[in-house]
């Protein structure tokens, strides 16, 4: 099996699907000849032409707004938002339109648009090239939110997203776009949306992460292991819907939970996980569920490493959970 990075996995999934399904089109800023600022759509313009790999004017509301109209008419648009920090001009189209079209039309108008967008910090991008906005979309009924952490999952999940009929926010962890590599089957395969992956089995503490934080969680788990603590690492992969069964299976086993995310702590998705777990498994919990998150400040530039969760902080939380 070839080894790919996440960019290549995205590219491969798009190419396969565009070959298989002529209705699939890609649109966004710089996605054409340039192949996207991260090169995720590289080569697609050459293979499928400017009509299916569309360099749009600079307007996210236009990218999503027209993608909605394309989907209603019968295409399968895959808009790219260059950085998730720039998704907000399209926010109305996403939360008031895309998310609600099927519902508000009584099921008449499904709207299968898959929005790809890089998320997260760690690239010295400051306020506007680092945000992790998943909460905003998870809180919006009608959207699915998928957040893979590695190339294999990226390809399989992206192909699944492109073939189902609900709108999806597909979050790509930009910090590890190239750094994360694993074996990826060449041809077609899909992964079920809504299922977590037990990245590392363990018995004492459940560590929940997604997207760019999975590798941090693994690092922390390895350090914990060295200190004699057995940590089970869950990669959620899909945030809406999220895999409550998989989470509870782990939590009822360990009784202790640490959640890691990059987004600001307050009202981050970690809060929902805590709420959902304690509602269903309070009697199994042996300590408060703790969170290692981004701080409740805008994402800073110089101090970004101080801002972002790291393995030491996660390890600290693991220890505290055990000591409680």
């Amino acid at each position, binding site marked *: 099996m070839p080894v790919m990075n996440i960019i290549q996995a995205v590219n491969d999934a798009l190419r396969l699907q565009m070959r298989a399904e002529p209705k699939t089109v890609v649109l966004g800023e710089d996605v054409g000849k340039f192949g996207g600022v991260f090169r995720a759509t590289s080569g697609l313009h050459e293979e499928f032409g400017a009509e299916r790999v569309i360099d*749009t004017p600079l307007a996210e509301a236009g990218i999503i707004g*027209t993608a*909605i109209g*394309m989907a209603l008419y019968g*295409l399968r648009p895959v808009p790219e938002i260059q950085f998730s920090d720039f998704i907000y001009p399209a926010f109305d189209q996403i939360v008031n339109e895309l998310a609600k079209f*099927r519902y508000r*039309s*009584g099921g008449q*108008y499904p709207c299968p648009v898959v929005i790809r967008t890089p998320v997260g910090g760690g690239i010295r991008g400051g306020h506007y090239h680092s945000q992790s906005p998943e909460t905003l979309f998870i809180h919006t009924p009608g959207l699915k939110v998928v957040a893979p952490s590695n190339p294999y999952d990226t390809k399989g999940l992206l192909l699944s997203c492109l073939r189902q009929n609900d709108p999806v926010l597909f979050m790509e962890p930009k910090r590890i776009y190239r750094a994360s590599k694993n074996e990826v089957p060449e041809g077609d395969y899909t992964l079920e949306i809504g299922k977590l992956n037990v990245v590392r089995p363990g018995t004492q503490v459940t560590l929940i992460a997604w997207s760019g934080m999975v590798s941090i969680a693994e690092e922390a788990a390895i350090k914990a292991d060295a200190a004699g603590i057995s940590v089970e690492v869950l990669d959620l992969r899909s945030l809406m819907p999220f895999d409550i069964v998989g989470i509870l299976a782990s939590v009822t086993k360990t009784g202790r939970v640490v959640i890691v995310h990059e987004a600001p702590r307050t009202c981050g998705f970690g809060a929902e996980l805590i709420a959902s777990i304690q509602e269903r498994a309070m009697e199994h919990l042996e300590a408060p569920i703790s969170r290692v998150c981004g701080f409740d400040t805008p994402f800073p530039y110089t101090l970004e490493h101080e801002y972002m969760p790291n393995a030491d902080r996660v390890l600290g939380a693991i220890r505290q959970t055990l000591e409680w």
Partner: protein
Amino acid sequence: MVAVPAQDDLRRVLDDDGRVLPGARVPDVSDEYLRRIFDVMSLVRIMDDRMMRLQRQGRLGFYMKAIGEEASHFAVAPLRAGDWVYPSYREQGAWFWRGYTIKDFINQLFGNVADPVKGRQMPVHHSANWLNLVSISSPVGTQIPQAVGSAYAAKLMGKDDVSMVFFGEGTSSTGEFHVGMNFAGVWKAPCVFICRNNGWAISVPSQKQTAARTFASKAVGYGMPGIRVDGNDILAMLQVAGEAIDRARAGDGPTLIEALTYRVQGHSSSDDPSVYRDPKEPELWEKRDPLNRMRTYLRHRGLWNEAWERELTERYNQEITDALVAADHLGAPAIETMFDDVYEDIPWHLQEQKAWLLQQARTRSPHFHG
């Protein structure tokens, strides 16, 4: 005050009294077609009147009238059935013309079990995919880039379908108007933009929306033709819409049409225009009423007589009454339908919430219909 427009840049065929203007070219349309338009335009007038009365009686939560603006709806008349229409909330004529029934319309207003959108949206937010009429949204302007997307999609898929989108002049101030128009220009999308300039956006007069001389002139910024038409002149409307649709279908790109008209009454059933505008202003415009002008024109052309109009008025009134009676017997959608159509399938958390609600409803709620 919305001035009666300068003639120079305004396309007209009929004068204010419904007579063909000297030198004007009458569009080449059949008698039958014109009578059908008058028929549907009358239905809009009748429906608006009946529904507003119902609303005033407290039997309907909300309504929005189009009185005085009905001719502009018939920009859809030259479209084919396969073409797509993105209406705003004030183009009842577009719905009826394309085959949306009085029953559909009234059931939507009541949000009952026969409502095509399953009681999900407020009154006047219709949707009819079988007629290529796209679900209406309350946030204004969002439909504009969407229509451009459909237009582009048709082009890409090698079909010659045209998309048409309606919006008010106030909506031209939104960012969505700009991005939609701009994409359409760049893509040469087969899309026709109908800006109904009815003078008001709730309480804000059109002069406070823009400093541009006309709304049609905004087309310049998008490299497409902008045409200003007397929106109360059915013949002029049919003409400019027909031309724009033909252009679009021929691959010559989009057109912006400013249909100059006037919102004779309140913005919606919740509005009271006497607070913010001079009551003499609507009077001025009542003389230019589109239905009256069309009637006069048809009479001159020998296509109208009182008996015919009386008959259709009675017929529609009866149909509306029947639909209301039927609607009264239809209950609300079942409580569990609340969880359908959020997604294609119902995910676990909604299954859980649904089960909980049904449990609650069984034991407690007075509203339980399930």
